[in-house]
């Protein structure tokens, strides 16, 4: 092959590679505008005020009640519950792995976390039905264990690997000099850990929690299977709920194309999209702060 031909191939492929980079921007933009256009169709047809202020999601009724509030409250409720379990558990585990565990133990435990991350969400949802649900029913003496508590436990399991991995990176990234300075000043191991190492890693820990929360908010199958599917405002953790994701999963398969109900599902999806995007951006902001702080 002569030189000019080789260079032509080189230039051509450079353009191909760049095009794929641009497509990723197009993809994110495409998802957003697809959601947005379909939701605008809903707001043009439906009742935008009722969407944000009403209290019922009941597409089957004659009036057709499309209020996001019960779904949004359910989503937030179950995700918050999962964080109450996963944040302490995840950060304690990450602390143990990075600061206390001997090397051999760490090489055994890290694959355990990766295996937990690899289990498909539908399998965890299945265990919510056959294992966690009956356990909750027995402990609290109720008929049915498919409720917000069940969903929170399962979502915590799903968010744990994310929280542990990122927290551990953040804790390990704290410079050794910080610890040495603290120990040299006479602080013991624990004071150093809790008053120097963990506070220095805090932005990274917040980033870990944000990304875990993003995962919990967007998870579909576990909450669809284990939370009982009742689209009402939740009053407690033993109430059945229905999240935004579960509502889309149940109703999109059966709804006729381009009806108000169809567009309403896109309208709740765009709200979910914006929330998860904001949570992820916030997580990224804290992760960047950690990077700058240690640079």
């Amino acid at each position: 092959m002569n030189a000019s031909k080789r260079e032509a191939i080189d230039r051509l492929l450079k353009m191909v590679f760049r095009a794929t980079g641009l497509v990723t921007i197009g993809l994110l933009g495409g998802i957003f505008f697809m959601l947005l256009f379909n939701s605008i169709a809903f707001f043009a047809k439906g009742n935008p005020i009722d969407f944000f202020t009403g209290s019922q999601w009941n597409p089957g009724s004659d009036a057709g009640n499309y209020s996001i509030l019960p779904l949004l409250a359910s989503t937030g409720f179950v995700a918050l519950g999962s964080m109450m379990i996963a944040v302490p558990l995840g950060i304690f585990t990450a602390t143990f792995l990075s600061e206390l565990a001997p090397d051999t133990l760490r090489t055994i435990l890290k694959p355990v976390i990766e295996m937990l991350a690899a289990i498909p969400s539908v399998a965890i949802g299945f265990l919510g039905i056959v294992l966690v649900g009956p356990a909750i029913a027995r402990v609290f003496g109720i008929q049915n264990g498919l409720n917000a508590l069940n969903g929170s436990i399962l979502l915590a399991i799903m968010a744990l690997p994310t929280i542990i991995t990122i927290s551990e990176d953040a804790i390990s990234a704290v410079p050794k000099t910080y610890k040495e300075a603290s120990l040299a000043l006479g602080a013991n191991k624990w004071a150093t850990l809790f008053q120097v190492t963990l506070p220095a890693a805090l932005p990274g820990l917040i980033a870990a929690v944000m990304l875990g929360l993003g995962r919990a908010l967007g998870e579909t199958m576990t909450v669809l299977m284990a939370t009982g599917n009742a689209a009402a405002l939740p009053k407690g953790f033993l109430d059945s709920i229905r999240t935004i994701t579960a509502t889309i999963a149940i109703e999109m398969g059966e709804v006729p194309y381009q009806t108000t109900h169809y567009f309403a599902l896109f309208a709740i999806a765009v709200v979910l999209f914006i929330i998860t995007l904001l949570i992820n951006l916030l997580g990224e902001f804290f992760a960047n702060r950690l990077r700058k702080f240690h640079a």
Partner: protein
Amino acid sequence: MKARLIIFLNWFVLLGSTLLVCAVLGIILVDIFSKGMSSVTWEFISQPPAKGMTQGGILPAIIGTLWLTLITTLFAVPFGVACAIYLNEYAFPSILTNVIRASIRNLAGVPSIIYGLFGLALFVQAFRLGTSVLSAGLTLGLLSLPYIITTTEEALKRIPNSMREATLALGATQFETIKDVVLPSALPGILTGVILTLSRAAGETAPILFTGVAFYINGLTSSVNQEFMALPYHIYMLSTQHQSIEQVRPLAYGTSVVLIAMVFLLNLTAFYIRFKNRTQQ
């Protein structure tokens, strides 16, 4: 005395949390495998369902998941690797590059059900591919893209610049350098990332719900424009939608065993490639 109690409590909390996380994995695996292994027979994985799903096997679901993973691979791997090559080999730090990176990070955070909606609007309706294994595979491909790009870029970053410089100094063009030197050396790393991503895609349910998965099809999926059965969806339907849920519970357990075994096998392959590559270096 008080100091000792505090030290004890610290250990108790930190070690206890770690053990609890391990116990969760243990409980999941022990429960599913102890109750599901007895259902997994040769008939179970080689026969189609029979008698309204209450008997028979899950062969169509296995074949469907293999089809799906194949289409996802064919679509997402070339695309993802090309994008990673652009980011690591060509792109200079600029606003555009930052926007691309930010898009990729945010795509990784988009809920999987929203990929399902996007696949429905784009592939099923706009491209008129219908509800088919092709639409579902492409949707899963989009979902996998950010992970493949990120892991591939990590693998490319580990190739020392001296190798690129040596090749360029010998007169190779940049593309030849990438094709003949950078990619072959980064291959084990890329492969690890790709396999881990695919193992994740194979277990996804939400993105395929509206793009082509079916609870039952007659026969096996044999072309890309057919609907298909998939293992994760089969578990979902057997455990929530079947008329006689208690009766099909062993089948749901068995299907979970097959799915988890498949996912773990892919993960082990990835770990093996990573381990072998490290010991060679």
